[in-house]
């Protein structure tokens, strides 16, 4: 907070420029989705000639043909699945990460190494066996197939473990001296302190689940049960793409998570000043 103002402004200018470069292609997607197919192919200008025609041809078609495109079902499925996965992962992983980061467990090092080790296993190996397991459980073509296996992911445990480790031990020791049990410490101390980490994990998990393609593709059979990315893929055939419809559908697919991100990120920014710790 003590650097000269011009160096801070300079840095911010660089950041703004970079951020704009990142966002430009996404804006392009939104803008191009407003063009009818024939115009998209011609790339004559960035802006659509007549946005209303594009909206009619692309968005109206995507939104108004539920027998072919049950987009609201897909949207609902995606919301249901992604929220459930996020909740599951946040709960299960924060409990596990706390144990691994802070509790004295016998054999902790090996358990942790094993969990991290699974991150290095190429996911494709798991596809067929997980399918067979889910089939035995009778979960194929149900949302459970998309939700429960994600609870096994090591990413969240690893992430929270690192964040928990970064929290100074003194705070925990103070709480323990006050007689708090492990569960209370976890709930009242670790979780609130690591809100940035939890919100980060929530965002990653949610977005990852939202965009997951292979899982729903393999574990679901019925078109009405599809999630958005798989549904949107139905506009592409192996030989060609219906660009207008695909772009419109992907706008519909991306905008909800954008909004959700905006909502969640306030939680992160409402930064935790360490001095303002409540008991």
């Amino acid at each position: 907070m003590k650097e000269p103002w011009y160096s801070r402004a300079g840095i911010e200018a660089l950041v703004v420029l970079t951020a704009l470069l990142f966002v430009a292609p996404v804006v392009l997607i939104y803008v191009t989705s407003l063009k009818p197919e024939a115009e998209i192919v011609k790339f004559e200008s960035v802006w659509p000639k007549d946005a209303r025609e594009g909206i009619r041809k692309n968005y109206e078609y995507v939104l108004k043909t539920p027998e072919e495109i049950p987009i609201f079902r897909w949207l609902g499925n995606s919301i249901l699945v992604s929220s459930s996965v996020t909740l599951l992962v946040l709960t299960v992983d924060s409990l596990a990460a706390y144990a691994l980061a802070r509790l004295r467990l016998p054999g902790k090092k090996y358990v942790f190494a094993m969990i991290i080790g699974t991150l290095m296993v190429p996911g494709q190996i798991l596809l067929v066996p997980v399918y067979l397991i889910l089939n035995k459980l009778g979960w194929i073509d149900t949302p459970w197939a998309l939700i429960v296996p994600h609870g096994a992911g090591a990413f969240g445990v690893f992430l929270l473990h690192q964040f928990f480790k970064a929290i100074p031990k003194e705070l925990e020791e103070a709480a323990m001296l006050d007689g708090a049990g492990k569960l209370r410490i976890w709930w009242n101390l670790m979780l609130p302190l690591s809100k940035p980490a939890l919100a980060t994990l929530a965002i990653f998990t949610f977005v990852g689940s939202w965009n997951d393609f292979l899982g729903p593709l393999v574990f679901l059979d019925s078109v009405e049960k599809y999630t958005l990315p798989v549904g949107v893929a139905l506009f592409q055939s192996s030989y060609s793409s219906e660009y207008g419809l695909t772009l419109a559908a992907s706008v519909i697919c991306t905008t909800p998570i954008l909004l959700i991100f905006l909502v969640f990120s306030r939680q992160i920014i409402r930064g935790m000043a360490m001095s303002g710790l409540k008991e």
Partner: protein
Amino acid sequence: MRGVVTFLIVVGTLIAGGCDRAEVLGEKTTIRFWNGFTGPDGRTMLGLVKTFNDENPDLNVIMQRMEWGTYYNKLFVAGLGGRAPEIFVSHSYALPRFMGAGFVREVDDLLGTGPGQLDPADFDANVLANLQRHGRHWGIPLDVHPLGLFYNKKLFREAGIVDAKGEAKPPTNREEFVTALRKLTDAKKKQWGFVWTWQRTNSYTIIRQFGGELFDPQGVRPTMGAPENAEALTWCRGLIKEGLVPAPQDFNSWIGFRQGRVGMVFEGIYMLPELERQKDLDWGAAPVPVVGKQQSAWGESHSLVLRKDVKGKKLEGAKRLIKFLSDHSVEWAMGGQVPVRKSLRASEKFKSLYAQSQFAREIPYIAYYPKNPYIFEFLTEFDLAVELTLRGTLPADEALGRGQQNMERVVERYQAQGWDLGEAR
């Protein structure tokens, strides 16, 4: 934060679960029908299935579709779990694999002249024979989608390539083709006479036109190193070296055609919906010119295939669906296919379909891929050899020679495992 998450779950459940529960099962027999028809194909097929369901109230056909690449994976994984559908679509080249696994039911009981049957004489003989093995049929062809010539009429007229009436005149042989290339290619205007779209199908066509063969007559042993194959590919590369054709780009060179900058492309009839959407393009369709010494054009067929153990009402319903779809091949063709029922092609409705009728002329000399279980491995090697040659990285005989070597190892491996390589074609 908890509140938000709970709210989301509730909303999601309501939307996902609430609206229109699947209709009461009642006495309907459910038949699952899987295919890779997405995009406009999918739309057409969905419409047909809906009509079928309306006309057959005792049946409920549920169609599941996904893009072809992932479709075959899905089918395979589903087969593992015993969840394969009763009836599915397969390209004819993929069929030997499913047959080899005992997945497929013969359909000879559907062929005949009785009620509810399909008359085999009404099918194009070569198309039907393509699905035959050991004297029995393993699928009913729904269509054939050949490679043909699409050309830009406006560019042709501007270049003066016209017939007596001043209409754009598509080339029919090598001389006319190369002449057209020279007239249409204009580097300054960034205009090309011809571009490669899908290298695989384009090259396969040209190789077959030069009399080349990639496998022995039984379709078992690879003959990639045959001289005609190298001759064909060397001629292709020659066009590029002369600057008449650009070095092959990715698949999106088709977009160049849609933009009106390319005079000619060889593409499948299934690209038709895209052309129909490009209202500002004045395009024409014709059979592929004979740039080699004989007529030949790549083609593939979608076949309707029954799962091996389907019985009873489901079997009967699935057969009805097959007959229905075959009888409605012209409606199916409107999405960019060619029917393989001679009687239906003779109908006025079909004759009014311009591009399909043009491409239908190629049916007598359709060149299918060989039938063997290692076709996927072959296509990988073929793609690579073609790519290396067209890009000028290797001379044709060397590129093909490498592919030949790799394929021989693959065939050895299959033989060692006791696969039924059978007589193909």
